[in-house]
């Protein structure tokens, strides 16, 4: 008798476990938030919003691959199969038009769009928009600064309180036989550099980003495109990027910048937290950190405001989610300015909300916080087209290695990308 009861109990328990395992409706619905890998900040926010929801929903974090392009691949393939498990996702802005165009993102109600756009820096707002509608919620916004070594600048006699130009950087690196930190690897980071150069020269890579694939025209074959190519070719051809340039990504740049031949580097603010941490851990001399300086992204044309790179993460709501209403609510909680401020202070990712910059914790952890906000206001997003992947990979295909970039690169690159978009070439 006892045995039978035990068996029945076990059966009941198993059934309950199966129900829970299948996401049965006992308890609050679970929202899955696909996040890019970070220092754990998004998981903390998920936890906090779960508590704030007070039983309305629970947020579970699921981590995506490290590379932005791989994050896109995984999400796009799942969404193409109408995966209902994707409630919230951390999206890299360049891929947002592709997702919005394919109908992968749930619509954001007008009042909510108004609320989450309030006080958001211009670059982040532009990156979250597709066809004049807010399709994602700005979460954190990234931008590159010009990092320099005080000692080098002093010797060169440069006045860093005024914006400097790429030509000045090239000159200093040549004179003192030092290495410039730029992203020359055949990856997304190289597209970021090209885009910033072309935009700072007053040009644009894609002239009509919202056009269908066979009507897209590229603005590379222009004065601005050739000016960008000249700067890249001079740095690459002159060996100013060091021997590691053809494989240099942001992390490789940082390790060179912490070394003996450092001069200038364009890079995201994570380099600051990473260097502070390295000094705290005792793996780096504190003098190196003291030698760090920062300024706005370098100009291409003297006297014309530069257009620094814009990156970051926006929150998208999956179109096939079973709980889009709850997911929208959760997205709004995630991007609350206090969450953004803490995320910046603890994880080093700058907020999209201007209000978050006034937080004392932020000002404390990042002495350059105001400069970051300023840089975000003049930042230029990468081409916002549903065919961004083709454009970016096409650029990498034709502009790598930097040492081979010449006056004819912009034109041949534009021809190649156009042919790829028309379906006439492989990538």
């Amino acid at each position, binding site marked *: 008798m006892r045995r039978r009861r035990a068996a029945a109990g076990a059966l009941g328990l198993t059934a309950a476990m199966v129900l829970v395992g299948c996401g049965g409706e006992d308890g609050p619905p679970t929202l899955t938030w696909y996040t890019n890998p970070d220092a754990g900040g998004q998981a903390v926010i998920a936890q906090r919003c779960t508590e704030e929801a007070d039983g309305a929903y629970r947020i579970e974090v699921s981590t995506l691959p490290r590379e932005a392009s791989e994050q896109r*691949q995984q999400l796009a*393939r799942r969404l193409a199969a109408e995966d209902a498990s994707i409630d919230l996702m951390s999206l890299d802005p360049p891929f947002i038009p592709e997702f919005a165009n394919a109908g992968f993102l749930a619509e954001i109600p007008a009042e909510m769009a108004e609320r989450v756009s309030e006080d958001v820096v211009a670059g982040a707002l532009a990156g979250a928009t597709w066809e004049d509608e807010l399709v994602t919620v700005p979460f954190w916004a990234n931008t590159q600064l010009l990092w320099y070594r005080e000692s080098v600048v002093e010797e060169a006699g440069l006045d860093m309180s005024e914006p400097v130009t790429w030509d000045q950087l090239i000159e200093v690196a040549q004179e003192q036989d030092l290495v410039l930190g730029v992203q020359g690897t055949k990856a997304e980071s190289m597209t970021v550099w090209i885009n910033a150069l072309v935009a700072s020269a007053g040009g644009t890579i894609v002239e009509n980003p919202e056009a269908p694939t066979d009507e897209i025209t590229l603005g590379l074959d222009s004065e601005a495109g050739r000016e960008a190519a000249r700067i890249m070719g001079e740095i690459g051809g002159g060996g100013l990027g060091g*021997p590691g340039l053809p*494989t240099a990504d942001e992390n490789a740049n940082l390790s060179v910048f912490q070394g003996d031949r450092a001069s200038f580097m364009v890079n995201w603010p994570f380099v600051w937290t990473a260097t502070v941490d390295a000094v705290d851990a005792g793996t780096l001399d504190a003098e190196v950190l003291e030698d760090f300086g920062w300024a706005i992204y370098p100009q291409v044309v003297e006297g014309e405001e530069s257009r620094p790179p814009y990156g970051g993460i926006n929150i998208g709501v999956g179109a096939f989610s079973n709980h889009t209403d709850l997911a929208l609510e959760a997205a709004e909680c995630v991007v609350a300015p206090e969450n953004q401020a803490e995320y910046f202070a603890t994880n080093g990712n700058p907020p999209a909300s201007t209000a978050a910059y006034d937080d004392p914790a932020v000002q404390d952890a990042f002495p350059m916080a105001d400069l970051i906000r300023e840089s975000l206001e003049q930042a230029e997003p990468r081409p916002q087209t549903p065919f961004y992947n083709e454009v970016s990979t096409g650029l990498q295909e034709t502009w*790598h*290695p930097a040492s081979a970039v010449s006056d004819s690169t912009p034109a041949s690159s534009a021809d190649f990308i156009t042919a790829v978009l028309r379906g006439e070439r492989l*990538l």
Partner: protein
Amino acid sequence: MSTQITPAAGGRTPQAAADQEEAEVRRGHEAERSDRTRAEARLGWYLAGPAFVVMLAVTAYPILQATFDSLFRFKLTAQDEREFIGLGNYSMILTDPVFWSSMWVTLLITVVTVLVELVLGFALALVMHRAVRQLRGLLRTAILVPYGIITVVSAFAWFYAFDINSGFVNSWFSWVPGIDENLNWFAETGPSLFVIMASEIWKTTPFISLLLLAGLAQVPGDLEEAAEVDGATWWQRLKRVVIPNMKAAIMVAVLFRALDAFRIFDNVFIMTGGANNTQVLSLLAYDQSISRLEIGLGSAISVLLFLCVLLICFAAIKLFKVDLAGARGEG
């Protein structure tokens, strides 16, 4: 084939002699199959049947699906715009320089790695075969270790060893002319391909040497002894006795490795991602179907890759007369 002395012919037991006789009968009267061969064939089907069905499900179905998809212009993010274009994808691919340069790089990697692995693998097989009994186990394990390592892991290990920022190769080998601390292995085609091929060779030589070891074990010892008594040098014995007797095993090893090498992906993906003209066919297919989400185009490349593999198989079996059964000692 029949003039060669097979292991069975050197048999000393009556059973082996009977087997040999039966094999000859089988060769002579292929049509009149004995009860025993029929029973063996039936047993073979029973044993291989379940695996065969599974293979059909997991390989035949995707191959057919890919062939079907390759006839369409089909992008995963624009599924409504799917359009039948017949062989359009194929004609585009076959006239594209990127495809052909990937093809040549793939062929280069295949030929070089298989040749080097064959020589190295044979040497290792000889060492394993001749090793003193006490050392044999240890030696075989040591030689097999690289093969047990996951390709992605080995690719990362080689990448970081040669990487200009974190690698140790440049400082360890700075005495070699051409290598110094400023050598960026992954900045140019030659050095990149060298590292890719070296890691491939390091990882898969054990596989080829294992197959060759099986072949060596088949070479009857008394043949070699007889040759030695006749005054043949070590080299002559190797060339005239050992190698001809293990030709089947060598060809099978070459075929298996060539098919594997032709589909190389992990090393290139991890180390260069196809930069500096190191793009290979598998990576090209990956780029189209996974990165660009162009299912039609990617499927077409996959089908072409599959056809190339079939061609290699066909060439090996028909032209070089590889006898797959021979490797098991049935020839």
